[in-house]
């Protein structure tokens, strides 16, 4: 667990030993975890806790209200919450019903602790992305933001080229490929145009970069251009 605040998980499982083991295992791995045995127990937990769980691990065969009904209810009330269904039902039809009832992940018993851990961590990463120290490229707003929060407006072609380099293997993109990403508004797409565009881009990035005189984009001989900063595209 990398986040500062522990991930909050509620395990809804009627089989006592399994519930106990799940709670123990998740607590051992740094989760803030509680176990309840049915839908009513879950309602009681919600009643006594102001903040909802980040993820609910839900069995399907439960006494009283079934897991699918609980899932539908939770999905409507807490759309941001992660729901992991953990059940012995392995049929495809059951899985499809599970997903349509709101499951983010459908796991079939028996699943190992390591796999469950990986699923919960991955789901949490998707649901609550942690702030990172990477540069942010917003394609819709054609804007680049540095880790310090400073932003610079980019042209559409600058955006496309920057995104193209960020996506490429080792962030090295071929010049021809980068040119293909550009819109030919000015009627002169060639290596000279790309050189000018990259110079402009370097200047804009350097202006907002936290490290002065840092190399942000470099030419790689016979390969093209390499982006030297990590960028998250949104």
């Amino acid at each position, binding site marked *: 667990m990398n986040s500062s605040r522990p991930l909050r998980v509620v395990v809804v499982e009627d089989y006592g030993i399994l519930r106990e083991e799940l709670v123990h295992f998740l607590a051992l791995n740094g989760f803030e975890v509680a176990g309840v045995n049915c839908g009513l127990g879950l309602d009681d937990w919600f009643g006594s806790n102001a903040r909802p769980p980040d993820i609910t691990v839900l069995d399907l*065969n439960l006494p009283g209200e079934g897991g699918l009904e609980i899932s539908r209810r939770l999905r409507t009330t807490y759309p941001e919450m992660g729901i992991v269904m*953990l059940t*012995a*039902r392995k049929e495809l039809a059951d899985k499809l019903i599970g997903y349509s009832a709101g499951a983010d992940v459908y796991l079939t018993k028996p699943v*190992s602790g390591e796999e469950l851990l990986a699923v919960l961590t991955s789901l949490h990463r998707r649901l609550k992305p942690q702030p990172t120290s990477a540069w942010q490229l917003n394609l819709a707003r054609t804007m680049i933001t540095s880790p310090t929060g400073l932003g610079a407006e980019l042209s559409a072609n600058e955006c496309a080229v920057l995104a193209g380099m960020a996506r490429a293997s080792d962030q090295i993109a071929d010049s021809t490929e980068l040119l293909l990403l550009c819109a030919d508004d000015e009627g002169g797409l060639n290596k000279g145009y790309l050189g000018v565009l990259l110079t402009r881009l370097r200047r804009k990035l350097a202006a907002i970069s936290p490290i002065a005189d840092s190399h942000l984009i470099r030419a790689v001989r016979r390969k093209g251009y390499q982006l030297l900063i990590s960028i998250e595209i949104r």
Partner: protein
Amino acid sequence: MFSPISAAVDSRVELLGTAVMSFLELDIRTFLKLLSIGNLVAMAMVFVYKSPENHANRIRTFVFGRLFQSMGFGLISLRGAIPLWISAHLGNPFLFFGIALEMIALRRLYQSRVRVEGLLIFWVGAGSLALWRFADTPALLVVVSSFVGALLYSSSGLSLLRSAGSSRLKTLTSTIFVVFGIILAVRSYLAQADSIGGTTSHPIQSVTYIVQFSLLLVGTVGFLLLMKEADDQLLLDSERREREERNLQSKFIDMLTHELRAALMAVKISSSSLKQQLMGQPPDVTKRVDNICSATDSMSAIVDRCREIERLDREEPSIHLSECNLLDVVMNLDRVRGPEGERLTINLGGAETVLADRQLLEVGLNNLIDNAIKYALPATPIQIYCTAEVRNSMPGFRISVENQVAAHTAPDAAQMFVRYFRGANAHNVSGTGLGLYLTRALVRLQGGEAHYRGDAEGRVIISLCLPAPSSAQGETA
């Protein structure tokens, strides 16, 4: 008032009446002989009926019934040629007994709740005694025999009507018996009033024997049909029972697998916790946890296999054939990606594609590889390869999994795919003896076949043959 029209109508009615009476003036003696012969033929017909269910007792009873009736009619037809005590006083009791046996056979066939055997035997006994004691004139003979016949037919008919089941054939037969009982009662009454003897020509005699003859024909065919109907019903009941048992078994397996999976999951999670908590402990301590994990995985695989077998037995698996690239399928198998994957040497070419249900193909191939991993000698390679093969004049591919076992220990080919069969070298490894059986069943469902070849050196090859897409689709088209 005399009307010429009504006179003409009266004349026509009289003519019609005369024609009917003339038709009904039958030679009773000939009829009796025909009934005697007819009963023998009927007896033979029923005798040769092969019932899939065990109707032996009913058939025997019916056959004896017809035999006694044949003897009865035969003796009665010889009235005048043989002494009266033989023809009438012995012939009629034979007839009563034969009818009673026929009725008992029918009642047993339909498992009527009303037990009339005792009553019928009583009528036969009482009727025979009455015949011997009181019937000293031809008319009285007819009175007593008809009355006993009426009692026999009507009580049997009513008993059958009250039996379980809603067979129309049974209802029709029972109704005919009751109606014939009434006709015999009328004959008994008229015999006294009109002094009718056994062979006397009289409309009621003709009606009686015509119905009797019809009963001989219809009754025999009816009995056969009733047996067939009873057999069909038994078959339906048996199928229904089997279905119910399967449903019950399926629910039981569902419950069992559900509970076992939950319990296994508890063990797996406990193992994961222990593994973390024992980190830094000597390897012989952590090995215990690894063994718990491996044993849990084996148990989980057995549970899954039992579930698949149960679905197969219920003929439940739905097949969705599609073009499957073998390399893609094999490289994504759990067993290939698992820890033992390094032992596998895979040589499948590139673009070999078969027509199969991907999920079922994966189950089959996982089983084969699992089997090879379990039984191959330690540190020996396991080879997976594919060859083109024409099967039943259709192009296809043979996917083989080859491994090495100890010399002279390769299982017998006849037993390899037998359910629950486990080889002599299987006592050290976990298993059910279901994997290969399941694999062959699944590959056959997809239009393919499974083969096994083992030699004295211990080389074991199990192959799955599946059709190529174009050939199978062409055939379907």
